[in-house]
């Protein structure tokens, strides 16, 4: 039964529709490969192993957050609080690292998870629009951040020699831990989505919540889990960033929610919910990161072009998505 639910949104047959479906799902991947190839040819410094690892490492912080957002968006919701929660996670981790690595890990995950949990409960039980609740969450987390940093510090240092720094600065087989973490996390996320009843319930809720409810699927629980996970992962992203930079910076993450949502939508997840892939979000994040890197490579180009190009790509992709959806007959 669960597999039928997951497969339900697939459109009708026909070659045109099938091509459209592939284009919608893999469009970002095509753009990513094309821009990586173009950048490698255009800039000598782009294709180097060092630069590519740098891109992957920089992308990993965003990717962790995007994974949580993917599930929330697939369930038909949205989480605008992730930027603030990311910053909160980082500051709490840096603060906690004074009391040992365990505190550095647990404090941010618990606090950020709690924020996600409350948001999930208010959305699922109270029936309030996710947009508004997480908007309030954004303000709340930012307020909390200001409250705990009222000694005037905008930056919390991780004590030198703390083992916590290893988490993002160390590596395995020459590849940084954050990249491994992202690979494992997305692997688990993909399995959860495609192979577990939780994943199919998420898709069913996003497809049609009333129907999922009538079928007896645990709508409330699934939504709460999605928002809680999103909060935990946003906090974890901040934690990783704190470990990487050895500091928790309070002003981080402003506007990050938009970047994350862009990445998820670029990756082919429908904002209306009910369809999408976990891997697509990873592609979306990488695409944004490659754009950023290319703009840095150009050097003479004003860094504000990054926002202009990211926004334009988002608009082009959603326009293409709509057009393809029409072709597909949805």
């Amino acid at each position, binding site marked *: 039964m669960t597999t039928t639910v997951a497969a339900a949104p697939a459109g009708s047959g026909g070659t045109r529709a099938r091509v459209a479906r592939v284009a919608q799902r893999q469009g970002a991947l095509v753009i990513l490969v094309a821009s990586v190839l173009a950048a490698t040819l255009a800039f000598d410094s782009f294709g180097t192993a060092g630069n590519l690892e740098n891109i992957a490492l920089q992308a990993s912080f965003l990717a962790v957050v995007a994974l949580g957002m993917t599930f929330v968006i697939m369930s038909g919701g949205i989480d605008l609080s992730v930027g603030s929660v990311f910053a909160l996670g980082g500051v709490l981790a840096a603060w906690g690292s004074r009391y040992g690595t365990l505190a550095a890990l647990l404090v941010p995950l618990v606090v950020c998870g709690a924020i996600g949990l409350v948001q999930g409960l208010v959305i699922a039980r109270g029936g309030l629009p996710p947009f508004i609740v997480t908007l309030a969450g954004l303000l709340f987390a930012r307020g909390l951040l200001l409250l705990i940093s009222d000694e005037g510090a905008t930056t919390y240092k991780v004590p030198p020699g703390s083992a916590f720094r290893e988490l993002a600065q160390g590596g395995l087989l020459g590849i940084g831990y954050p990249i491994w973490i992202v690979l494992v996390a997305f692997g688990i996320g993909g399995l959860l989505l495609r192979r577990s009843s939780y994943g199919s319930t998420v898709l069913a809720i996003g497809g049609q919540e009333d129907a999922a409810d009538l079928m007896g699927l645990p709508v409330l629980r699934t939504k709460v889990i999605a928002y809680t996970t999103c909060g935990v992962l946003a906090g974890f992203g901040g934690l990783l960033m704190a470990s990487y930079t050895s500091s928790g910076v309070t002003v981080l993450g402003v506007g990050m929610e938009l970047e994350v949502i862009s990445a998820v*939508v670029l990756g082919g997840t429908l904002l209306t919910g009910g369809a999408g892939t976990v891997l697509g979000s990873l592609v979306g994040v990488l695409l944004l990161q490659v754009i950023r890197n290319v703009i840095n490579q150009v050097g003479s180009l004003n860094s504000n072009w990054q926002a*202009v190009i990211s926004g334009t790509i988002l608009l082009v992709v959603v326009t293409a998505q709509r057009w393809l959806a029409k072709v597909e007959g949805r």
Partner: protein
Amino acid sequence: MSERLASKPRSREKPERPRRRRIDPDWIRRNGVYVALVLLLAINVAITDNFVSDATLRLQLIQVTPVLIVALGMALVIGTQGIDLSVGAVMALAAALIPLYIGYGTGVAIAIAVLAGGVSGALAGTLVARIGVQPIIATLGIMVAGRGVANLFGGEIKSIRDPGMVALGSGSLLGVPYVVVIAAVVAAVTWFLVRRSNFGRQLVAIGGNKRAAELGGLPVPRVLLTTYILCGLLAALAGVLLAARSQASDPTKVGLLVELSAITAVVLGGTPLSGGQVRIAGTIAGALLMQLITATLIFHDIPDSTAQIAQAVIVVAAVYVQLGRRKARP
């Protein structure tokens, strides 16, 4: 729907329930914002020193104008069941254009800045009305790109020394600051549009039920397009007024998070996010209430952090109260 089924037999048994009527929840929903505003005013008169003074009143009115003007445009968009996240970026863009064109004369610079808002609104409207992109995503893309464009044009903070702009920002008509006069005119025109014009009736009909409006032969795309253009024009006007008052434009700061304040003002004022209604007087009261909350906290030296948390709670509470209406009248 199940509620209606469940409540029917009960209402037959007890046709009259006068006790429940006395605290009519719908009345609170409609007029809660005015009650809250009056209450908060009364509290301030009682406990805040120097609150009842010409200077305080003037300052509060001047400070609320940008958000109020943006909120009026936002109310129109929300009335169509849409949302516009790009208003803050449009404000920044308009403010950034002023110093660039001020050499051609004050009027020319203002016209170009306001027109830029119209162009941005036209883009959002086209994406939403013609292509069918979700409003939140279309305006999200414009928000990201627009802030980038504003930064490209504006660069760093620029001061505006033009006498025309200075007069606009700090002059007054019969003792009422120009900016307040302009806000009042905008409010009156918006009210007229919504209540007395064909356009307003069509807008509300589309927000109530787009499909029905389409079938009824209303020019849905044209009305939606016009609505987003109006919202863009008003956001740009707010940016111009802000630049005139501060005699400077800082594209990274102008209009930051204004979309959230505007949405909150609209929702507090009783316009449902589900569309189909526009409450202009409520929106004005909502903006004033938000301003007064912020001012009250500042007057009493309550830190920014607590203010933000308070705002978060207010947003959720306001929407929760609204939600009751949607349930009551499905």
